[in-house]
């Protein structure tokens, strides 16, 4: 099934782009960005030794947008150091949520602060703008930065943004992009929302917990007496008195 994706890439390849043989030279002389897709002039894919920008769209208007309503720009850092704020997480973006207006041309610059691969991958965008899966991705092979563009759709919606390397989203590299305020929150966004299937952590009883238990127990003992006093004042007799009385009558 992965061939669907590969086929799509191939469809996007223009004959001229294929004709450009890769430079048969060592790393230094390869151009930093080499566009290889041009059938849809704005759905381009750039790939080089530093990473790739896949499926960007800077011109085609989403359905319902009459014009580009505005320009916006975000800079996202990715890496291990950004997860230090979140206990039990390893990787993170420096921000976990971005709010953008609809029909806005959004330029995203991803800065990778780690020496390994990270992605800024967004899902469920309109498939006609980002074929074949409605995804847009910036990927960096290591330290460095890349910029890509998309145009936000008209609808009020919350989009998943993550790094798809195994265990990167699971370990904290998850965020959400809200267009027009979004239509809710996603789960497991570090520092923002609870996890769907949270871990079970050990519980320990320090002295304070025992003290709290003691106070609660003492309070529990006093409640019937206090209640009794209140009722006696109101009815002239405590519930215990009345119970004794009922028993005698029986």
């Amino acid at each position, binding site marked *: *099934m992965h061939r669907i*994706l590969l086929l799509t890439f191939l469809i996007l390849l223009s004959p001229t782009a294929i004709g450009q043989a890769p430079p048969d030279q060592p790393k230094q002389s390869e151009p930093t960005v080499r566009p290889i897709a041009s059938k849809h002039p704005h759905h381009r894919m750039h790939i080089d030794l530093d990473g*790739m920008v896949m499926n960007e769209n800077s011109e085609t208007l989403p359905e319902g947008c009459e014009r580009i309503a505005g320009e916006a720009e975000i800079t996202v850092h990715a890496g291990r150091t950004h997860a230090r704020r979140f206990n039990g997480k*390893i990787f993170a973006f420096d921000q976990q949520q971005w709010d953008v207006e609809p029909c806005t041309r959004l330029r995203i610059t991803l800065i990778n602060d780690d*020496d*390994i691969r990270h992605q800024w991958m967004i899902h469920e965008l309109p498939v006609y703008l980002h074929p074949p899966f409605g995804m847009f991705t910036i990927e960096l092979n290591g330290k460095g930065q890349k910029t890509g563009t998309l145009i936000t759709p008209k609808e009020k919606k919350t989009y998943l943004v993550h790094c798809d390397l195994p265990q990167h989203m699971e370990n904290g590299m998850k965020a959400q992009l809200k267009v027009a305020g979004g239509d809710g929150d996603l*789960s*497991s966004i570090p520092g923002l929302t609870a996890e769907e*299937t949270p871990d079970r952590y050990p519980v320990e009883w320090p002295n304070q917990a025992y003290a709290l238990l003691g106070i609660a127990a003492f309070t529990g003992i006093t409640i019937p007496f206090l209640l009794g006093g209140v009722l006696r004042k109101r009815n002239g007799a405590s519930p215990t008195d009345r119970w004794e009385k009922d028993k005698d009558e029986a």
Partner: protein
Amino acid sequence: MSHSKRLILLFCSILSFAAAALLFPGAEGESSVTAPATLPPAQPSSEDLVPPCRNKKRAAWRDEQVIEDVPISASPACEPDNPNAVTAFVKGTDRVAMETLMRTRLARDTLIKSDDRDGDGDPDVIRIVLEVIELNGSTPDGDYLFPTYAIAPGIQPGLWVFAPKTRGMAVKHAFTDEANEMLRAPSPVIRVEQGDTVMITLENTHYFPHSIHLHGVDHPWRDAAGHYNDGVPQTGERRVLPGERKTYTITPRQPGTMFYHCHVQTDTHLMMGLNGMFVVEENRPDNWLQTFNVGAGHVRHSSAAVKERYDREYDLHYQALDKELGAIIQSANDPRLIAKAMNREYDLTDATEDYYLLNGHAFPYTLRDALIVAKPDENVKLRVVNAQHGLLALHFHGHKATVTALDGVEQPPGLQVTRDVFDLAPAQRLDLHLQTSDDGLHGYGPGIWLFHDHVESGITTNGMNPGGNISALVYEEFLSEQGMPAVAASIVQPLFSKRFQAGQAPVWQQGEAARLYGDVAPLFPSTGRVIAAGLLVGIGFCLLVIVFRSFSRSR
């Protein structure tokens, strides 16, 4: 009611309950004159059965072909390696045409080859990037695993692998959780040429620290720049933490079949799958090597030295997994919880292995991509590594192979023994020369000949046979069109069943055997006992109520 009457009633009530318990029908019973019938075999369902060979689209990958001037030999098995990836592994991911690279999942900087230092027509400086990938790991987003990798139908143990650096999604496409073809067990075979300067960069994409230890490969303890090069934290090397990279630089002087593995918490990290075969090929002119053999198995572009002496070459990676160890990464997400469970609570001395894999798969999935395919009168080169926790006793049906090298060291002619069981201690390697000549010694003629571990636990999956590392040496004339051993579908299909793998279906389920050895229809519980137990429970309960009511009346 007097106290004595109450006591008697209470006693009778208890007696009734006790009698009911005694008479209650048990989980097992005896049949009458006729034993119970055999349950009919379960109706096949698409949820349960997996197609034995599902990749019809890969048919074109099987042919002998030339991509970008790289000759790639035919690989007729059901799931051959992607020839585009083979081309990228021969030319380097930076030099291969973008069109070819796009047909793989590799990144542009995965493998860079340069500098023909000795002027013999092949590159001598090789830069390799490995990532660490978790397969079948857990997620805080729900009760599912990601990305999934099945070793056999329905079996997805948690495991880790080194993988060549890839790009894009970890999965096959946006609507599946199944890992893409590059992310699989075992960790890939790495092939370099004797005398090459090889820089192996570990990019730690995982949440735990890791390292690479080049077991048996000629490498200095410290490289020219003075950096630790042995991958061992206890002798000074800093563990490679998540997000960090570390390059190991070597110029191996001796050829041979070697090994590499993570040396951080080796007991668990090796057993989780962070180990692979490392081959140093003899130096020859114009010797462009297939640097990675993902999933091990057939080498579709062998080295010059191997081609001089052999018709085909196969890498055989034997590996075992403990399901309890793998379950640790599926039971929590917080790395601190996983670290505690794995490093301090898991005790390898109390552990047993459950899954035995050949080239990342257990039988019957081994039939898809771990076959040895040959024709009569051929010379086949086999490289074997035992990455299991215990002894491997590799046995070939119908053939006696000859040992040419042990642990990467060629054996003198007098020690090149010919036999049919080869014992390998953990981490040992073996080079074998398998001849498919029908001479009664090296071979007994064409057929579908099994080869497997003869330590019998090795041929089980979760304790059930047939499973484990069973695979087959298949002569081409015995291959089906799809590249599977030409065995009747009625024999093969029931094995590709999740129910069967889970032990829920009888082992013998074909023809008359299904009636003879199928599951027994459960007995109806003894009618008399059901009635008696029911009556006694009722009586006991009634007596209890009488006793309690007598108390409230007397008050």
